[in-house]
Each structure stands twice: as C-alpha cells, then as structure tokens.
C-alpha cells in the first residue's frame, strides 16, 4: 500500500468531508469528532456519491416509541435510498454480510514529520506547522 497525502487537517472541518482522487479512485475522507475515515465515494447499492451522505448516529430501539442514539456522527446514511454504513469499516448496517463500502486506512501526521519522509512531494505546498491526513491505498 502506498501512502498518499490528501489534505491538511484544517481543510476538513468536523462533520465535513473532502473528496480526493487517489490512484484513480474517488475517495471521500470524513472528519468525525477528531477522527478521519476514508471510504470509496460510491454507495455499493446503486452508486450514490457518499460525499452527500448524512453523518448520522447509530439509532436503536428496544421497543416501538423508544429510540436510542449512540456513536453520533459515525454512521453514514446514503443520500439516495438511505442505507446506513459504519464509517469505521464501511460495513453496511443493513445486511452487513453482503454489503460493504471499501474503506481505507487513514492516519494524521504532523507536517514536520512528513517532511523528513519520502512524502514531501514537490506538488504539495507543505507547511510544516500543519498536520496532514494520509490515506493508504
């Protein structure tokens, strides 16, 4: 797997996302509560762009009329038919054995660390005080 610098952390506000082209793939990187998740930007159902998905909570109900929310912002609700996916691993909440969004490992590294490594591509205007989001594909 190669590592790709896809954004500076300041580019993706909490609850926001950024679509990046990595090695020919349309990948969307989400920022949720200080964490970053990278997924293929395409719903496995009919291909909706997941950058338009709603970042929702896990909603469970022990009985009609009683609802509980957990993992706020970590579930992805497809913009079309509303299928829900776990952002951490792309697993579908509906029929999880059969449907999954391809997800990619993400890391955040400080610019000054990156500068030492092989990833200081000339094309990236690296400012050493920033942190960067790295996706592995």
């Amino acid at each position, binding site marked *: 797997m190669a590592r790709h610098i896809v954004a500076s952390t300041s580019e993706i506000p909490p609850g926001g996302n950024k679509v990046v082209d990595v090695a*020919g*793939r*349309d990948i969307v990187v989400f920022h949720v509560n200080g964490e970053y998740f990278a997924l*293929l930007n*395409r719903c*496995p*159902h*009919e*291909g*909706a*762009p997941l950058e*338009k*998905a*709603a970042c929702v909570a896990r909603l469970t109900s022990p009985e009609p009329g009683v609802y509980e929310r957990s993992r706020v912002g970590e579930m992805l609700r497809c*913009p*079309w*038919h*509303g299928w829900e996916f776990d952002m951490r691993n792309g697993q579908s909440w509906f029929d999880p054995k*059969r*449907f*999954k*969004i*391809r997800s990619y490992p993400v890391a955040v590294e400080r610019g000054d660390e990156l500068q030492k490594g092989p990833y200081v591509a000339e094309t990236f205007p690296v400012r050493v005080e920033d942190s960067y989001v790295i996706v592995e594909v």
Partner: protein
Amino acid sequence: MSEVIDRPLRDDEKPAASRLRIVDCDVHPSLRSTDDLNEFLPRRWQQHLKEYGSHLRTPYLFTTPYPRSSPLIARRDAWPPTGGPPGSDLAFMQKQHLDPLDVEFGILQVLDLFIFSQQNLEFGAAIQRAINDWQLAFWSHRDPRLKASILVGQDGVDLAIAEIERCAKIGEYIQINVSPRANEPLGRRRYWPIYECAQALDLPLGIHVGGYGGHAPTGGGWPSYYVEEHQSNAHTIAAQLASLVIEGVPERFPKLKIVFIEGGFGWIASAVWRMDQHFERFRSEVPHLKRKPSEYVRESFWFTTQPIDEPDEARHLRALIEWVGIDRLLFSSDYPHWDFDDPRFAFKTPLTEVERKKIFSTNARAVYKF
C-alpha cells in the same frame, strides 16, 4: 450486487453519452415557488391560492399525513446550489441527471400543490391548467428532451375534458395524467368520457402513484408508518388495474394505452394470475368482458420500473421481468426523489442488449411515439 465495491469504475460503468440513450418516464420538476404560476393563473385564482391555499381531502394543511424519509422526499444531493427545492432548477437537473445519464427524453411528472387532490374542482382545474402551461414554458421549451403531460383531475370530468382538448390543440403534450386516488375506482363509468377522449386523441393515460384521496391509502385503513404507507402505492394501483380491466375500460377502449408510473412491477404477475383464475370461475358476473384479464393487461397496460424490486437472488428479478413481459416495462428514475433508480445499476440481473434497449428506450418510444 453483493460484492464489495473496491475498484475504480470500468469504462462501461461510467456515464457514457454513447452508451445509454435512455427514455426516463418519471422525472419530477418542481415549482421554485407558487409565484412561478402567476403568469398562467388568473388573478382570481392567484388570490385564492394566497388566501385559502389547497383544500384537500386529508387533514394537515401544507403537509402530508406521513413523515417522509427525507425533506421533500428528495435525494440529499439533489438540492440545487442556487436554492429552491430539488427539481426546480433546470440547469442543475441537466447537469446532475439529464446529461450524465444520457436521457434522450424525460417525461415530466408534476406533483406540486397536490394537484390531483384539490377538493375545489374549479380551483383544481385552474391550477392544473397553470401547471400544464408552466411545464411547457419552464421546461419543455427550454429543454426539448423534457416532455409534458396534461394534468387533469378526473373528478371534474367536464373540466378535465375541456383542459385535455385545450392542451391537445397546442399539440406538445405526450400523455394525459390522472390520479390513482380519485373518488371512485378508475374503471367506473363516470370517468369513461376521459378515456374516450384520450383514445380519440391517441394520448396515453398516465397514472402516477401517490397523493391522498378521500380514502385511506390501504384497503385496510390508515397505516402507522411511512414505510407501510409507501408500500401502499403498489396496492392502490393493483386495485386500479383490476378496476380498469374488470369494469371493461380496455374492452371498451381497446386503443387506449395506460401507463402505471412509479408502482414498480413485482406485484403484477400475481394480480394478473388471480384475475384470470377468478375470471374463469365468475365470468358470468362480467359478461361484458370478452377476453381474459391478462390479455387486456398485455395489450393495454405498461408499467414503469421504479422503485425496482431487489430480491436477494438476481434470477428472481429476472423471473419477475419475464412474467410482466419485457415489452411492458418502461424505465423510470423518479429523479430527484429519494428512491431514485440509477439506470446503470438498478437492474441487478443480466439483461441482453435487446432487452435493455426495449426497457430503457424503445418500449417508451413506441408508447409515447417519440
């Protein structure tokens, strides 16, 4: 359908202008605001709209009896960047839907202002007339791919016929739309003058599911949940199919083409089998029918594909398609609504090139004569 999507799109999956060339039989345009209608609505009715608004057969003004799965039942990505509701911006519709999906023709289906359910029939007729004019001025004339329908409320039969005749003279409309939730089942004689008129003008009759009439949406009453209510679209048109066939509409108007829109097609085989079986037993009750119900269905009815059924096994979808008949199916996307079907991925079962062409294009071209 089940594998993990972990690869870039192949070329044949990308929206390729030369590949699709589809006819989309269900595209929903929206008013940006009711002011769009001002130029088509006499002052009196503009005033009425402002002061009284809609008068419907269901409670809860300006809303629907069930919460929808998403605001304005729309795809989350379909809100135009320029503001306004989904479906209200032609340039955005072109960019998001018509161009990338290579829609050769898109048939407009207007749902604004609960158009078929207005209780004040004269107000309803004025609104329908304004919307019929608006479809041409705001849509068809600005993008000739988009085809307009003549919307009429069938419970005011005289008003409906006058409107159909007015629009037919203009000559640009491709079908006549009536509601699946009229006051009485659609096969009733009181509606026949509309069918006669449609047949004489050679305009298909389009029946788009949805809306609320004076009856509960299901035969069993008012459901508790939207997910239940959404199902009832199929029950309603199954009942209307039976009514039209058994009351003798296709027998009496054999050249009339009837298109059920947005009801899917998974239910059809069972409905038709049952009608045939009962017809064999009870034909003396309906001596006006000369042939089996299935024969009328095969000759007079077409069905749009969305929302497509998604059985676990692709071959079951294949079987449904065959039971209904490749020739009976017309592709529709329902853009920009939340249960939109993408023509590239909706059919999760193999189709031959010939079948694809029929469902995505030539069947509709034959029905609507493009």
